[in-house]
């Protein structure tokens, strides 16, 4: 089900990157061969086949400069793709922009507001730009959005006087001005304190629970692991993997790791237990645990006279999966 679109992936005739069943389930965001080459020749996004299932919380991951924001700009009709096509809420972009975007709340590359206006006046300004927003309810909607991000008390304060976290919150409030079917959040927790980060996370879960699809980009793995049902991983403009989190990590076997001064003897025990992939290093031995109960391994080790200093089962983390997918650490892409 999980599909790889990296170099090693086989070229499929059907649209790549589509989880099984995508044909029946509508996708909130769909892109086929989406490519952006900037004027300078820089290919920021390269042949992107993205499928964001409706109702998912989709984590869009990638190192700095990997093309996340550029992708989001193309999805929102801000940037014209060099080639390829994308759909948002079933409408082709940018042609169907006026039908799709009123149902999309977007935070793109950080907050941007008029510094000389208050938070509330800023939201009213953006609301006025939405042709489908009802001016009669603007007060209630702005108030609800501000309350929702905990800015109710600072509503009348000038944006200039907002702290970084308050600005970020205001930008999130701006995405909540109307009934949304899709939220596109580019690094929504940038600049927030831990408390704010937690609040944003629970806000996203809350919004997703109402059935809204959330497409959230981030370069922080831990953040995404906690709130997303699906992820897509960008690497230097290419989508190297996408799918449900559980499936992406499922392909990676859990390993048992033993800390011991008797590495060789321990390795022999693990071999005897027919564990695969036994690796012995100085002071530690590891192997794929498979279906063997760890306590049995422990008993065998102790029985064989191995001094066990530590024993742990290592489940594959998202980060490990990424390191496998992206080849290296999570650093800046040119």
């Amino acid at each position, binding site marked *: 089900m999980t599909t790889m679109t990296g170099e090693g992936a086989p070229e499929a005739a059907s649209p790549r990157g589509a989880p099984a069943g995508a044909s029946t389930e509508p996708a909130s965001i769909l892109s086929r061969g989406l490519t952006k080459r900037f004027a300078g020749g820089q290919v920021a996004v390269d042949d992107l086949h993205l499928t964001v299932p409706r109702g998912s919380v989709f984590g869009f991951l990638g190192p700095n400069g990997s093309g996340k924001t550029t992708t989001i700009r193309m999805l929102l009709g801000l940037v014209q793709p060099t080639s390829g096509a994308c759909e948002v809420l079933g409408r082709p972009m940018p042609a169907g922009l006026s039908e799709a975007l009123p149902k999309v709340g977007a935070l793109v590359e950080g907050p941007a507001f008029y510094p*000389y206006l208050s938070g509330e006046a800023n939201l009213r300004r953006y609301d*006025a730009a939405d042709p489908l927003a009802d001016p009669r309810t603007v007060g209630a909607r702005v108030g609800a959005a501000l309350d929702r991000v*905990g800015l109710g008390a600072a509503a009348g304060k000038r944006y200039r006087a907002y702290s970084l976290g308050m600005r970020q919150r205001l930008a999130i409030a701006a995405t909540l001005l109307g009934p949304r079917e899709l939220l596109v959040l580019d690094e929504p927790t940038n600049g927030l304190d831990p408390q704010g*980060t937690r609040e944003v996370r629970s806000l996203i879960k809350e919004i997703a629970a109402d059935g809204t699809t959330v497409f959230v980009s981030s370069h922080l793995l*831990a953040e995404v692991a*906690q709130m997303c049902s699906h992820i897509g991983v960008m690497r230097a403009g290419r989508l190297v993997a996408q799918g449900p989190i559980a499936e992406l990590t499922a392909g990676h076997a859990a390993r048992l790791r033993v800390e011991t001064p008797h590495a060789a003897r321990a390795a022999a025990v693990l071999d005897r237990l027919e564990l695969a992939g036994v690796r012995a290093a100085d002071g530690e031995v590891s192997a794929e645990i498979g279906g063997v109960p760890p306590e049995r391994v422990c008993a065998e080790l*102790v029985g064989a006279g191995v001094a066990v200093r*530590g024993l742990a089962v290592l489940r594959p983390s*998202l980060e490990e999966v990424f390191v496998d997918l992206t080849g290296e650490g999570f650093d800046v892409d040119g």
Partner: protein
Amino acid sequence: MSTARTTRDSAGSARPDAGKPSGRTGATASGAAGGLVDGRADGTVSGAADGRADGTVSGGAGSLVDGRAAGRVADQDGRPAGAGRAAGTAAWAGAGGPFAEPMRPRPLRATGRLLRSELGLTFRRPRNIAMLVVLAVVPVIMGVVLRVVGMDEDTPSIVTQVAGNGVMLTFVAMSMLIQLLLPLAVAVVAGESIAGEAGGGTLRYLLTAPAGRTRLLLVKFANMAVFALAACAVVALAALVTGFALFPVGPVTLLSGTTIPLFDGLLRLLLVVAYCAAGMAAFGAIGIAVSTMTEVPIGAVAGSVVGVVFFQVFSLIPQLEPIRPYLLTTWWSTFDGAMRDPVATDVMTQGLFAFASYALIAGAIAWGRFTSRDITS
């Protein structure tokens, strides 16, 4: 021995539930259940080589399944803390909430709303107010100076005209200000229009609202035209009030020598204001076109002002006489046609035609550029 270690590991996987204050580091402090974050710290304790593996132990055991559940627990605990969120949700989902009835598209009304918002920004912005104040103060100063100088023997005829009738101060003030100060004020608003939104990043949020590129551009044009009219009206009004206060007022002697009643003279001034506003709006259209080409509002403002100066230098060079009719600035000063008898409709119609041509060309350029441009700010 082994138990000690396993205990620690299980403590590790239980950690997310505890929702420890996670402000460990700025960079990775992404929340409570930071199995990776904590794990990495563990790693540094037990040895650099194990770092990542250790991290995956503690976070890993529960990172994908338990971790998420833990997160949910933390949310439920955290939810009451989020002030007003419950209220917000109620307003959100409740049947009587603000989203109860969906809006039918009403393009004209929606555009009117955006224009009102735009006008509100323009006319409440301190810098723009300051420019209007300066435009109002200059005629007052001119009036006072003329009043003082007017007593002299060999003064230019224009001064004696003003000295004879305060209404003429409006005419004199307009002739002065339309050369540079009025265009400057319009250039600021026009140059700011798109470039300011782009530079401030607000353009991307207007467009994803979605304001619509053509609609936003139309609103920017309308807003600029209203400002141009307001600027001209401010000059005329300030001059009129000063003229009434400092000079005798009566039937108006026109430039062509005819004298018309005061009321008719005021109507002529209205015509002057309208004509000047049209000229300024045409210039503003150029300013908006320049504004769609850059993300630096000051650049757009400077660009259009430099354009004005060039035009005016051109019109001073005798050899360039043949191109004068094609220069926008040439037609600004022909508003004096309104102060002749009969009104010089031929010249002024030509002027309006020139304004319309400039505005149309600039509008087309702005539209072509703005609707195809990548918004990367």
